[in-house]
């Protein structure tokens, strides 16, 4: 492991058994059904940076988030955190959740919610020290001391997300997994929360694993992006490189779906079709049924991950070389006429 990376992921896989109950399976002669939520993913997250994973619903990005904080155990492969202050001698990882309404226990006062990790990990001794720490954490996320006495229902979505961040910070984490932290919030509040997260990252040298389906959020907040499709990473690159010059057709299609204020009527290829079921994925390159450039080889052979010198990795038989000369641009031009 390089000393520069906070997290190294090697060939990570997580499969779920979603078979019918045993008796039904025997009676109806149904085979076992395995859902390969994550199937062979490798990446590394540099210390102090934000690594984003994007993809449509069901592509396995939330499973990676849960694997990272130990809520799931990997079926195959490894997830290694750098050395840190955690109980096992590794970095302490914490999570910020998607749903600000479900992530706080409605029957607990906010101060108790934030104090729980402090008690549980034994980070402060004595009621006064814990209370002082809770007040400090509330201040860090822009809430008042008196807010600690209230119950979660008296807060808005954005304020709840601040409480959720305070709870995560209470563990004194070095690594934060953010599972769609802004997707349930109003657009006006999204920026506030993202900026708060970025401020905290600078202040505490945190490393973020950001899970999102919102490319605008990802572009604003992340240093590197991995695009996932059906449990695999199809393209990974530094943020600006990926947005300026997407090489995987799927990345290209994702970026094309972002509305553009400056060119609202620009020609674009809409993202067609549904994500196939990860229980029974297509052969070869799993993206081939939706890919406009699919050839015979795509239906038969799964493309290997190819790394180039700029820090880009791509799994495609026919990467788009540049945006301008790509056949997609040609198609778009035709459809614009």
């Amino acid at each position, binding site marked *: 492991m390089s000393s520069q990376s906070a997290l190294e992921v090697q060939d990570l896989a997580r499969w779920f058994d979603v078979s019918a109950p045993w008796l039904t399976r025997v009676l109806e002669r149904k085979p076992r059904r395995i859902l390969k939520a994550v199937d062979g993913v490798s990446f590394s997250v540099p210390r102090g940076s934000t690594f984003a994973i994007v993809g449509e619903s069901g592509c396995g990005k939330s499973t990676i988030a849960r694997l990272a904080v130990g*809520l799931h155990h990997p079926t195959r492969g490894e997830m290694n955190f750098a050395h840190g202050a955690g109980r096992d001698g590794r970095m302490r990882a914490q*999570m910020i959740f998607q749903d600000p309404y479900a992530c706080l*226990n409605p029957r607990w006062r906010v101060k108790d919610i934030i104090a*729980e990790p402090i008690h*549980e*990990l034994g980070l402060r001794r004595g009621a006064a020290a814990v209370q002082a720490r809770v007040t400090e954490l509330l201040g860090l996320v822009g809430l*008042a001391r*008196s*807010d600690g006495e209230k119950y979660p229902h008296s807060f808005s979505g954005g304020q709840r997300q601040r409480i959720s961040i305070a709870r995560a910070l209470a563990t004194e984490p070095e690594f934060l997994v953010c599972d769609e932290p802004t997707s349930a919030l109003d657009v006006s509040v999204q920026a506030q929360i993202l900026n708060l997260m970025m401020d905290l990252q600078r202040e505490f040298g945190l490393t973020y694993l950001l899970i999102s389906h919102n490319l605008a959020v990802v572009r604003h907040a992340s240093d590197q992006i991995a695009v996932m499709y059906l449990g695999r990473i199809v393209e990974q690159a530094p943020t600006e490189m990926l947005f300026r010059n997407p090489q995987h057709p799927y990345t290209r299609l994702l970026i094309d779906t972002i509305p553009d204020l400056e060119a609202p009527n620009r020609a674009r290829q809409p993202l067609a079709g549904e994500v196939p079921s990860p229980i029974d994925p297509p052969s070869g390159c799993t993206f081939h049924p939706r890919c406009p450039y699919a050839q015979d080889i795509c239906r038969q052979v799964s493309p290997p991950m190819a790394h180039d010198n700029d820090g880009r990795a791509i799994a495609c038989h026919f990467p788009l070389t540049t945006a301008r000369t790509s056949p997609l641009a040609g198609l778009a031009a035709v459809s614009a006429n």
Partner: protein
Amino acid sequence: MATELSPAPSGLRQRLWAFYDSDLIWSFRHSPMAILSAALLAIVAFTSLFAAWLMPQNPFDITQLYLDKANLPPIWIEGGQMPYLLGTDLQGRDILSAIVYGSRISLIIGVASVALSMTIGVLVGLMAGYVGGALDNFLMRIGDAVMSIPTLLVAILISAIFRGMLPVDYRDAAAPLILVVALSLTSWVVYARMIRAATMVEAGKEYVLAARIIKVPRRRIILHHILPNVLTAALVTATLNLGLAVLAEATLSFLGVGMPSAQPSLGTLIRIGNQFFFSGTWWIVLFPALQLTLIILAVNLLGDWLRDALNPKLK
């Protein structure tokens, strides 16, 4: 974002005010049916609690029964005597006193069996719902087995087994306890199923995941995080089931496997009175039956109100 304008409530007075001001109490104050039912239950509870001071006679005490006062009709019918407002039975037992003492037994058994079955059901439901897997299967199949036999049959069976195991002298004294156990062992499944389903929903919520990430022990997650969030549903069912429990106890006593004649519950009184119904002394059966109906009606109306008041979708 943060304001210091509304300081957090503290102190008993503020808490009481907050309680009075809460949605639940508001809803109560605006529901005549709930107030009426609660008042009725309060009267029943009060009279049965202080029966020894309020009633002219202790119907369990043979020295207070006079055979020359037997079979007196209610006071407003010719031949009625003070202080026997609702008349007396074959042994000179004052019907009103018997009803009040009987209600006490019925209510105590009802409340105790609901409390016990709720405790069993909630614990089983929490474990089955949170741990899942083989334990869930095991506990729920036991529940299915209990539910697949009619409740009263199971209760009669359990009651008979316990009675058979006890020496004759202790049977009457242990009768209330046997009834409570028999009724609880047959009615915990309702709570267990409901709490299991609610627990599975809560266990998937992110606040539970947050606790799991910092490795909060399972027992503490279940008791501190999940239990407070699933208990409301159980309490509503408990209120609704109190009526059922009182009724089930009355049925068992009516069938002769419940409370003995020496310590009559409402069901026992109805059974005794039933024998004299056609000989003209109708008051022996009618008044206990009316009391039973009133109690069950009041409990059910209160339970209905509570269910609606606590259901956020109906607000």
